[in-house]
């Protein structure tokens, strides 16, 4: 017998007790999600619930139960949260938080990162046709809406930017795939990393970069 795994029937361990019924598990995730202002992962819920519980199933039950109610169970990336129904926002004027008024540059940069992620600073500049100030990136990072992604495997190994779960939470998105108009943009080829003519075949790296970008993007949006 190892130290970590007590034999079955050890009293000081939850395995002695039966896994709570699903209705009880639903109560548990309800309490956990309710108590937290931040989204909670399934893993975190399972860790806090008795052994053998299925937090994901319980959350799905809970989500169905709150359908049409004043508060809703929402998915934010791989996390879950309870949020008030958007149609009742007018009742909460007291709770409204003044969001920083974002500059046009910041809004566009954010949108480009969201739709093109993972995206390098050079690519953002190429799309906007103007250099991106450090302040804009810093602001978006500070707001918790973007973060660094993996480095691009091209010469210079530039850093990439991706949006965060906080971003998804703020804009009420389950995943980055739910971004408005994403499908249309993709079908119109407007999310392709199309190098300027005369650059694409200058070196092999340009090609690599494109391929890598696609890969990263698929990664991000498929999950």
């Amino acid at each position, binding site marked *: *017998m190892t*130290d970590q795994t007590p034999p079955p029937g050890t009293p000081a361990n939850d395995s002695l007790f039966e896994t709570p019924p699903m209705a009880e598990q639903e109560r548990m995730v309800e309490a956990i999600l*309710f*108590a*937290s*202002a*931040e989204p909670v992962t399934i893993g975190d819920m399972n860790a*806090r619930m008795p052994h053998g519980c299925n937090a994901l199933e319980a959350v799905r039950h809970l989500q169905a139960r709150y359908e049409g109610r004043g508060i*809703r169970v929402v998915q934010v990336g791989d996390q879950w*949260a*309870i*949020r*008030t*129904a*958007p149609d009742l*926002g007018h009742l*909460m004027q007291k*709770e*409204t*938080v003044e*969001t920083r008024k*974002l500059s*046009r*540059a910041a*809004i*566009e940069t*954010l*949108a*480009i990162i*969201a*739709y093109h992620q993972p995206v390098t600073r050079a690519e953002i500049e*190429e*799309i*906007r*046709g*103007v*250099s991106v100030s450090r302040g804009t990136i810093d602001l978006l990072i500070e707001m918790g809406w973007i973060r660094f992604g993996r480095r691009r495997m091209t010469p210079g190994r530039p850093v990439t930017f991706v949006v965060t779960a906080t971003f998804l*939470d*703020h*804009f*009420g*998105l389950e995943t980055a795939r739910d*971004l*408005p*108009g*994403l499908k249309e*943009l993709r079908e*119109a080829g*407007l999310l392709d990393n*199309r190098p*300027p*003519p*005369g650059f694409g075949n200058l070196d092999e790296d340009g090609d690599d970069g494109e391929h890598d970008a696609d890969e990263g993007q698929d990664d991000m949006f498929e999950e």
Partner: protein
Amino acid sequence: MAEDEHRDASLSVNERLAAEALVVDVDGFEGPLDLLLNLARTQKVDLLRISVLQLARQYLFFVEKAKELRIELAADYLVMAAWLAFLKSRLLLPPDPEEEGPSGEDLAAHLAFQLERLSAMRDVAARLMARDRLGRDFFPRGIPEGVERVRRVEYSANLLDLMQAYARIRTRDEFRPYVMDRDNVFTMEQALDRMRHMIGFAGSWTDIMSYMPQGWESDPVRRRSATAATFAAALELVKEGHAELRQSETFAPIQLRQRTKPDD
């Protein structure tokens, strides 16, 4: 430059007025691509069907106008102007089969793509910002309950540890009889009992060695046990709040005195 003469003829009055308005507002542009997008919109056609040649002319006219009005344009606007002048000549001249590099049409197509992409990103940015937003349209829990972090220590021991411990004790000291063999052990409880009674008399600092039980001072084994027990008991008294301990320096005598508690 021959092109310049044709320029004015190729632009309508409306376009010129629009360009002038744009020049006055030059600070409002997010770079040359943004300016081009605005100029393109004056053509009032789908961005896919835009005349890049006309756009290049509009832009060059804009730059010219800015010069006339003595408006300083940032370097990247001038770089774009140079590039568009090059593109314009490429588009106007018949293709030279000897010439390396992309054709004027390729360059024009890419510029159209860039404009369409920028325009599309603007649209989705607006749609994104118009979504229901946390803290404005929907809200998180107002009174979150923090998750308390509890650290639990789990002690581990297995049967082997237990048996080895027992074997260790039983093989120690060559199995000397242990029962009734308390002669040389002075326990902390004994010391504590003794000191509890005595401490009431010690209002001033007293060396803890003076609390040693009689008959335990000489024999080294007994002395060691009694010293340890007395010291441990002294610590216990301090912990209980009945006494104070002090030591002036390392290895100096340890002194004890009763702690006066007004509320006790």
